């Protein structure tokens, strides 16, 4: 069992199968298409498709099984490898590997001019200049110095594999404890219930979100330029935060991130209506067809019967019905009444129903009539994100170590040979790189130069 999970063959097999699942998943049509197709032609096929989750392979038991196999494989391979790596990491630097000075790339310097102790000092300082620290032992033939670089790169592959496990863990945490939901809010309204993205469930929020304004802007050629929602977050009856939500600029409130994901035209159009009584202008009311409002001091009630963006080519208009104890009248209010009167001065005589002051003493007017929008927000809470980000960072670090850093070890032997002193330099690297010879040569040059001065 253990050997099954630790084999490289399993890794390759799992990776190849995952690749095949991905290829299939990108070519299979989406859920609804598959299901209608299967139901029309054969119920058996539909069952197979449902059983294997073919229309959503990324969330199918098959895919989960493969990911589990791959994760176990990674964990067990890492556990298997680790003791050997640790031994290598902790390995004593002396004695040098057998035959180091015979088989490895090496350079020799033979000199007569100086004392052994002086040469030892030079070697030591050269090594420390290049590799920060050095070690020294004395053997019967002479002294051997050691220096190294990049020992942590022994763990490079472990770091990369760990990073994948960390990311998978983050993804699992996100899918179990995360929240993904959608809300549509009409301009001016507030909502505290979100529809879950998966399934039909709903999520009650402990605050509500109000859409103060939704704006869509276009470039001259008609391409959309901006989708913008002005939102207010209301908790305990108070606006705790206002913010502008744009695509690429999410807002966060109460650990939930809000994204601008869609928008649409609400079915109704709204008119901004004001009225004047005895020269005093009222505040503006935003009204859609079917809305009612009360008129102060006259026990009258208004009902909006119609809101039109362009009524009979005469511009924006609304039709009102005002009910009081004495009267029940209906009339139209035009936004551009002044223009209409300029063209046709006796319009109101001919059509009294076009008179916005028909219910005295109130005179109504419209500031604007506009399409109302709803904004589509995407809500996300994903506690797995820190882990996924950490995994990503580890992977980059790991890959850079794998490809660009190696564990390089150098041994320098200083020995007396009759009247001469022989300096031999050997080195090795955990990767098959050509750099090691260059480094030995450069070390050799440096020692030479130091000895001249």
């Amino acid at each position: 069992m253990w050997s099954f999970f630790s084999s490289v063959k399993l890794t390759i097999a799992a990776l190849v199968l995952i690749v095949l699942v991905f290829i299939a998943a990108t070519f299979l049509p989406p859920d609804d298409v598959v299901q209608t197709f299967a139901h029309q032609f054969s119920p058996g096929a539909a069952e197979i498709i449902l059983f294997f989750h073919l229309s959503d392979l990324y969330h199918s038991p098959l895919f989960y099984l493969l990911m589990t196999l791959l994760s176990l494989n990674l964990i067990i391979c890492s556990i298997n490898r680790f003791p050997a790596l640790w031994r290598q990491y902790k390995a004593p630097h002396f004695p040098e590997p057998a035959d180091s000075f015979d088989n490895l790339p090496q350079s020799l310097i033979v000199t007569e001019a100086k004392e052994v102790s002086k040469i030892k000092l030079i070697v030591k300082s050269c090594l420390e200049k290049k590799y920060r620290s050095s070690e020294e032992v004395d053997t019967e033939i002479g002294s051997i110095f050691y220096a190294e670089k990049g020992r942590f790169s022994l763990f490079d592959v472990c770091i990369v594999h760990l990073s994948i496990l960390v990311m998978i863990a983050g993804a699992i945490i996100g899918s179990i404890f995360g929240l993904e939901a959608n809300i549509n809010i009409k301009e001016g309204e507030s909502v505290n219930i979100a529809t879950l993205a998966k399934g039909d469930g709903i999520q009650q929020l402990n605050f509500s979100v109000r859409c103060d304004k939704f704006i869509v802007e276009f470039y001259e050629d008609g391409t959309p330029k901006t989708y913008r929602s002005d939102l207010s977050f209301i908790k305990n009856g108070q606006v705790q935060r206002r913010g502008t939500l744009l695509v690429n600029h999410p807002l966060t409130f109460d650990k939930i991130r809000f994204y601008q994901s869609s928008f649409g035209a609400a079915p109704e159009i709204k008119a901004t209506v004001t009225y004047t009584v005895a020269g005093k202008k009222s505040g503006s009311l935003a009204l859609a067809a079917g809305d009612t409002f009360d008129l102060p001091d006259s026990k009258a009630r208004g009902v909006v019967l119609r809101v039109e963006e362009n009524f009979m080519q005469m511009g924006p208009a609304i039709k009102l019905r005002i009910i009081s104890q004495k009267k029940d009248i209906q009339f139209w209010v035009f936004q551009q009444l002044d223009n209409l009167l300029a063209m046709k001065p006796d319009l109101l005589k001919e059509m009294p129903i076009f008179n916005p002051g028909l219910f005295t003493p109130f005179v109504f007017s419209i500031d604007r009539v506009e399409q109302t929008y709803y904004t589509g927000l995407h809500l996300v809470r994903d506690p797995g994100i820190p882990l996924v980000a950490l995994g990503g960072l580890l992977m980059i670090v790991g890959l850079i170590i794998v490809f660009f850093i190696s564990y390089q070890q150098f041994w320098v032997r200083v020995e007396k040979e009759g009247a001469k002193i022989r300096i031999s330099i050997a080195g090795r690297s955990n990767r098959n790189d050509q750099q090691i010879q260059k480094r030995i040569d450069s070390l050799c040059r440096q020692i030479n130069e130091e000895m001249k001065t």
Partner: protein
Amino acid sequence: MSHTMILSWVTFIYFISFVLYLFRLITGKEFWGRAASFLAWGGLSAQAIAMIIRWRTSYSLGIGHIPLANLYESMVFFAWTIMLIYLIIEWRTKSKIIGVFVVPIAFLAMAYASIAPGIDNRIEPLIPALQSNWLTSHVITCFMGYAAFAIAFGYGLIYLLKNLDKDKTEKPAGFLEKLPALATLDTLIYQSIALGFVFLTIGIMTGSIWAHYAWGSYWSWDPKETWSLITWLIYAIILHARHVRGWRGKRMAIFALIGFACVLFTYLGVNYLPGLHSYLRT
């Protein structure tokens, strides 16, 4: 001169440069190689200037953005990164031979960008989803990766071509003799794949961070995401096979070809599948 005019000239220059690299390979005369490199560097600089002009023009149109936002712009940038990485390798290795196999890829990308039906070379404004600082880093890292894989593909082709000749007993004929040694090619394939792999990894991650800000999820199983992951896994399999199983030579060369086919599908083929990366659809 408008930038599109310069880019047409650059396409032509790359073609001539390719022809000169071919002359050098056949005749073995160093003069042709120097001329080819000279033209290639010239083309690269002219193309950089054209891209900068296009960038500035977009600002004067009031829709300023880096020219990496649609299929045309990405294709031009792809050609540029291929030439850049190739010329750096040529300068480092002092070998002009693979120019014959790599420069035509850049030429084809440029030609495809200008003549393929449905590729629009107009400067278009950025839609809201693309208005992000991550656009630049995501596109640049991805295309550096793609370009490195394109170069590995070039080396793979040379390897297989040279390998055809290996079993013959008589002395290799003509230009095959002049190609680099198989072992050198193998190392170059590996190095290009490793470079591409690091860039692709960073490209996927920057894309993922961007998606986190734009779509609300770092991973949405959009076909382009999935295909970039497929490409990543295929190169991961190649690297594992090399490190653990010791795959060398012909197998690496063949996989370099398969991997690049995957890159091309991720770049171009996926646009015909439904998904979120529809900015590139023509």
